[in-house]
Every structure is written in C-alpha cells, then in structure tokens.
C-alpha cells in the first residue's frame, strides 16, 4: 500500500470531520401539533359517548382487529390479551378504543382529560421497535404498521404513558411461529394519518368543534402556531401546559387551570391505568444517544488504529516456526 503522508492525513482529517461535524440541522420535529384545552372539556356528559371518542371509533373501525378464535396463549405462559369481547368499552384505551376521556375530581372540580398517544418528538416506541413496525411521520405523528407488527408490546413497555394496546389472535405472527413468538398487533391513535396526509384534520378535532363551536377543546394546526398559542394562553390566563417538555417534547399540548403536579398526584392516588407524570425524561436522548456517540467514535478509532497499524507494521510471516 503506497500512501503518501499527505494522502494519509487527508484520510485522517476526512474521518475526523465526519465524526465531529454538527448535524442538528437534520433533527425532525414534525409539521403539526394538537392543543387539548381541558378547561373547556365537559366529557360530553349529556351524551352517551363523547363526540371525539365516537368519531375516533367511527374513523378507525375498518382497522379494528378481528381475531381468529380460539386464541393461543403466549406459550410458556397461559395468558393472552383479548379485548374483542369488550369492544364497547370507552372509558380506557383498548385495541378498539384509541382515545378516551379520563375523569378526575380535584379540589371539588371535575376534570375531563382526553387521553391518547402524545406523538412524541423523539418517540421511544419508534426507536425501540425491533421490527420497524412503528414510524415517525413527517407530519409529526407516530404510526404503527399493523401488517408487520408482531405484538411483542415492547412499545407499550417503553412508552412513558404505556399507550399502545395489544390484541392477540391477529397479525403476521400467526404466519410464523404463533406458539413461540409474537403476541398479536398493537393499536393506538395515529392522529388520523390518512386524513392529515390529505390535508384534513383528525376526526376527533372536527367532532369536538361541531359540538362546542369556538369553545372547542381540540385545536390542530402547524406546530409553531400551536406551541405559540399554548404559551400565549398559558401566560395570559394563568394556565399550565403539559406535553411541551415531557419526554423531550411532543406534538400534543394540554392546557389546564389545575397544575399537572396535582393531576399527576391524583391519578397516582387513584392508581389509574393511564398516568400523567410531569417529569418524563427521554432516555434515548439523555442516556442512549451519548453511548451512540461512543460507538461511532470507537468505529473511527478502529479505522484509525487499523490504518496506522498497517502503515507502521511490516508484513511478517517469517517467524512462524519456533
């Protein structure tokens, strides 16, 4: 190998430049966000089913799971997750209900909190899915591809709010080793991906506006505008924001007159299935990514030492016999 000193340093500086150049310009926050104003939500308490929940179920019903029965347990365990007989359940998240209204009484007031996927800026579910079934869309929403989801429920485990819900007896795992691996398909709100890609609003947003007109709970729009409006209103009306810092930022901002610390404490006390923690660290950003930099540096070091070693060392086979 004939590498002049100049060429050698060119290679070195190239590798160093690759490793050190700033790349934050490519980070992706997504185009849209939703404002959920819980000071306005009354849970549609004069109607049998909240409008947003009804619209969500109607919009997505063609994608609801139709499991083949009998459903096999998750061997060697004897359990499996089946919600197919509880399709009418609207007071929690299920594979058949991707949005629900969480009712909480705090200081004599009743709060109605619409709960669904927060659509994080740095979603752990997307980063952690081993099958690549989850993706972060340019619009900012997080989508599960039901056709390749194995239903291992890792996304639910690593989601700070444990949002995705599993239905057994459906999905691609049935075609491989259904007894030994896979557990169904995960379901959650995808922010009406098809609708927002067509330039329309999510179904829940429209349904709420039909009832509450200009006092609507949901507002869907460009991310910067939604963030600006939330901050402006929080300051002007003395409201609290949730979702702007949690898990490194999300595309869902809640506005509340009661602090989210109080809401968190109450939900904890109630041992609610879906909590609202105020301090949510994004462990991918804070703990895993620094190790990622170490991995890349180790790669650069490996290349460097390899190049230096090869150039410095003579080829020696002649010492093979003692």
């Amino acid at each position: 190998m004939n590498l002049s000193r100049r060429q050698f340093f060119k290679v070195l500086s190239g590798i160093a430049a690759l490793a050190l150049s700033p790349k934050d310009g490519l980070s992706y926050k997504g185009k849209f966000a939703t404002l959920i104003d819980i000071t306005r939500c009354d849970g549609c308490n004069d109607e049998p089913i909240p409008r947003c929940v009804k619209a969500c179920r109607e919009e997505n019903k063609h994608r609801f799971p139709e499991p083949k029965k009998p459903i096999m347990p998750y061997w060697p365990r004897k359990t499996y997750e089946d919600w197919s007989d509880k399709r009418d359940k609207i007071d929690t998240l299920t594979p058949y209900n991707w949005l629900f209204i969480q009712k909480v009484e705090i200081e004599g007031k009743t709060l109605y909190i619409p709960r669904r996927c927060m659509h994080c800026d740095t979603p752990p579910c997307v980063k952690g899915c081993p099958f690549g079934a989850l993706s972060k869309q340019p619009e900012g929403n997080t989508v599960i591809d039901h056709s390749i989801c194995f239903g291992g429920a890792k996304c639910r485990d690593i989601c700070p709010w444990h949002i995705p819900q599993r239905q057994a007896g459906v999905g691609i795992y049935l075609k491989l080793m259904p007894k030994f691996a896979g557990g169904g398909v995960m379901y959650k709100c995808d922010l009406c991906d098809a609708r927002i890609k067509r330039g329309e609003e999510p179904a829940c947003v429209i349904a709420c506006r039909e009832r509450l007109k200009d006092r609507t709970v949901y507002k869907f729009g460009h991310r910067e505008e939604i963030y600006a409006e939330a901050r402006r209103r929080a300051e002007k009306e003395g409201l609290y924001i949730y979702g702007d810092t949690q898990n490194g930022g999300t595309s869902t901002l809640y506005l509340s007159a009661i602090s989210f610390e109080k809401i968190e404490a109450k939900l904890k006390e109630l041992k609610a299935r879906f909590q609202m923690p105020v301090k949510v660290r994004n462990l991918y950003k804070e703990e895993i990514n620094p190790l990622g930099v170490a991995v890349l540096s180790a790669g650069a070091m490996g290349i460097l030492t390899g190049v230096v070693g090869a150039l410095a060392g003579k080829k020696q086979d002649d010492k093979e016999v003692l």
Partner: protein
Amino acid sequence: MGRKIKRYGAIVRLEHWMVALSGIMLIFTGLGCLPLFKRYYITELPGFKWTANFYTVTKLHYIFAIFFVFAVLFHIFYHGLRRDFSLLPKKGDFIASLKMILASFGLGKEPPADKWLPEQRWAYVGIGFTTLIVLLTGIIKVLKNLEWIYFGPKVESTINLLHTISGGLFILLFFIHIFFVLAVKSNWPLLKAMLTGYVDEEYVKHRHPLWYERLRKRLQ
C-alpha cells in the same frame, strides 16, 4: 518432534476474542431488545432481573457495540491495507469445503489444505458479510437515533428490520462456528492456537501439508 508453529499472532487473537466476547454479549443484549425475556421467564432468573428493563438492555447493547465496532473496523482496515487476503475464498474452495465438512463427520478424507482450511475461508466470508450488514444497519440505527441522519419512515423501518434479521443470521452462524470448533475433534488444535497462538508441527504436517511445504521451503 515437539516443535511449535506460530499460527495466530497477538493482533489476530486480540481481534478474534474482542469480536467473539463482545459478539456474545451483543447476542444476549440484542435478544433482550426483543420482547422475549419476560415471556420466557429469563427476567425471573436470579441475577437477571435487570433484563426486564429495555432501556438498560439497550444501553448495554451499545456499550458492547463499542468494542465490536472497534474490532471489526480495525480488522477491515488493518488487514485490508496489509493485503492479508489469504482468508478469502479461492477457486476450488467450494468443492474442497464440502469434502472437508463430510470428513468432519467421518466420511472420506480431508483434502490437503494450506494455512486456512477451504471451509474456513467460506465461513469467513459468510460470517464477515453478515457481520458487515448487522454492523452497518446498527451504525445507521445509532445515527438515526442521534438524528444526525433522516431517511424517512419507510427506509428507517426497513433498516430496523434488517438489523433484526441479520442479527438472527449472525446468531445462527455463531452457533455453527461453535459447533464445528467444539464437536469436530480435528479442529481442537485450532481452538488452542486461538488461545496460545501456536500449533504442533505434527498437526501442520498432517492437516495443512501445503502450508507446511511453504514453511519448510522458507526455512531451507
């Protein structure tokens, strides 16, 4: 009688064991990144409770990747620049490999080999190619998580899946490798050599006659 012949230098042994040990840990933590350990009670084994936390397992996966990535890239650049290409398959290796594998099971005789056995060269290419895919997709995943690159949902999903599949293939090839080292007695001197660096002259004479011939000529 009793002379020892150097087969693996210190650098080669270091590379091998760095890849092997970090590889084993990457296999374990990689499997732990799949939602399987809880289901199969691994998380309930004494001392394995930490495997229930996907974040802990992922962090460890990254830590072992530091050693793996270093060793593999060092290997490629060091031996690539030195033009150490004798482990790449040669003409006729395919048939010779089949004969070699049959001989491992007591069927027929091993064809005369040089320093590297023909099936070793094929195994090297197979495991090397798989390692490259698993390593490249892994690095792309790291870059994607850092948000230093952005490919769009479809490509990112494909890369995730490709890392999982090539990781599975790596596990399979790893077990085949271990099987041929441990179960085939004629390979035991090679395992010893990977630890000490040396093989017996008698072994070389019988199993690597072409290599032996070269060594003898050089000494004369």
